[in-house]
């Protein structure tokens, strides 16, 4: 098994910039390890989370019975076992140390949750945890950042990532909580950057817009081109696969809310007019050009 230290490949960096496949992200993660950072590239030591920390991570993630919680660097299994025991979730632990894996399995049996959890001996940089709906991390900053490209590329939009102490260096958390320690919640954002054809069945008639979005993680901005002008998208928000924005035209605001489906479409409802009973219509957008494709 490859330990997640000192892996380096000078050629990997340009490769990472050119490709977008999952395999390229893997190489990108390896290449970034060679980039000098603020933190020394040392392996993450095993430091068990306190009971209070385990509670807070699972609470912040909004864990429930339908979730599959993957703990990357699962130690003695306490996060995964708590997810199964206290929330009825299923769990997956990835741990490099085989002794800790064996201990986790024994702990799971003792807690009576063995059939709902799985522990795999392996490197968090290569393990497969794509089925997870929640990913928990208690790792040193440099490993957290090396995991990021794969987390973004492989996890489904809306998957919740909770990082204990160390979050991603350039990705703003959707929420942070400080209770003795710091916990960051990130929602994996859908990829929405690019040009879209937006068709809206507004209460006052059908409309088509050329709609553009720029994206940096969950932060989005953009607007719609209309004959002779541009309508900026106000209050544009992306939370996982849920998107919302407001277009204002001729003194009327149109509030769009919807879901991103795959990479090529999104749809939802649009409301206009003030008050408690606004007029309601529907909208659908299909992607014309993906962000980055232009240049």
């Amino acid at each position, binding site marked *: 098994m490859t330990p997640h230290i000192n892996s380096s490949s000078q050629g990997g960096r340009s490769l990472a910039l050119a490709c977008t496949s999952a395999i390229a992200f893997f190489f990108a993660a390896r290449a970034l390890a060679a980039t000098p950072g603020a933190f020394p590239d040392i392996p993450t030591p095993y430091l068990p989370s306190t009971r209070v920390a385990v*509670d807070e991570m699972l609470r912040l993630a909004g864990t429930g019975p339908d979730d599959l919680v993957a703990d990357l660097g699962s130690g003695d299994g306490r996060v995964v076992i708590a997810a199964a025991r206290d929330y009825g979730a299923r769990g997956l632990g990835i741990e490099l140390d085989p002794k800790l894996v064996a201990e986790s399995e024994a702990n799971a049996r003792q807690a009576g949750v063995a059939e709902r959890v799985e522990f795999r001996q392996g490197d968090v940089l290569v393990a497969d945890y794509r089925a997870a709906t929640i990913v928990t991390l208690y790792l040193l900053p440099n490993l957290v950042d090396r995991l990021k490209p794969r987390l973004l590329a492989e996890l489904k939009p809306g998957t919740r990532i909770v990082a204990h102490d160390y979050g991603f260096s350039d990705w703003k958390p959707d929420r942070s909580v400080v209770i*003795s320690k710091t916990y960051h919640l990130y929602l994996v954002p859908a990829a929405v950057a690019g040009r879209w054809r937006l068709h809206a069945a507004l209460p006052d008639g059908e409309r088509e817009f050329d709609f553009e979005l720029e994206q940096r993680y969950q932060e989005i901005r953009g607007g719609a081109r209309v004959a002779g002008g541009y309508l900026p998208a106000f*209050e544009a928000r992306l939370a996982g696969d849920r998107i919302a924005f407001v277009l204002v035209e001729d003194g009327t605001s149109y509030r769009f809310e919807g879901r991103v489906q795959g990479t090529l479409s999104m749809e939802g409802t649009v409301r206009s007019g*003030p008050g408690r009973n606004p007029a309601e219509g529907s909208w659908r957008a299909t992607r014309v050009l993906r962000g980055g494709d232009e240049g």
Partner: protein
Amino acid sequence: MLSLGAIGAVAVQSGLAQEDRKSDVPYVATPQVTVDEMLRLAEVGPGDFVVDLGSGDGRIVITAAKKFGARGFGVDIDWRLILLGEENARQAGVADRVKFLEQDLFQADLGQATVITTYLRPFYMLKLRSKLLALKPGTRIVSHDFDFGDWPPDRKTSVRKNVFLWVVPARVAGRWQARLPLPPIERLLEIELTQRYQEVSAHARLNGVPTQVWETKLVGDRLSFVVVDTTDRDDEATLYFDGRVAGDVIEGELARGVGAGRSVARWRAVRAAK
């Protein structure tokens, strides 16, 4: 009272105040999109009483009544705008639910208001601030473009213009004591709160042991905070407090732990000193 110089300055600056108007404050109509956004941000509903300070043609109060089901009144110093507001309310069919008062907005009686809307230049916003802070905790105030200086808004949106929401915070500063019914042993929580608007910092002792207080939040009369209970070393747990402040009493729910291990009790704190 303001000096004539100040009145002149505002009128000249804005270019909108008419010479013969008694008002210090120029009338600038709020765009309808912003009116909608203000009332939406304040979550105005049928139970609300909306007071618009500087009501102009009455559009905010009329929209609040017609589209959001609220009642309310507008205050304006210009009698011609009062007449216009009344006429507009009749045409909108809400004359029975709104009123317009010819009055200096700084003299208005705000006792009935659950929502206050206003659009004033920064100088007048600051002049109004202490009066608004003295209102019933939970009263919502919405404005646009201009804010209340160092009183940070509770929420903000930008749909064409910046719209701000403030919630009048309860006055919670002082020393509070609570007996917490947490079996097997009752615990004594002493908590000292200091306050700057809705921003609250707290120091606590749990059974006499200094304990840090986390995630302290005050929205109107609703106070929440978190304490880690280390009384039992083998059974550390997080205590989530949520309560409503009414005078010198805070009452609410206290949750210990999370998930399946979560237990909930009532808690009540009394202010021992201001």
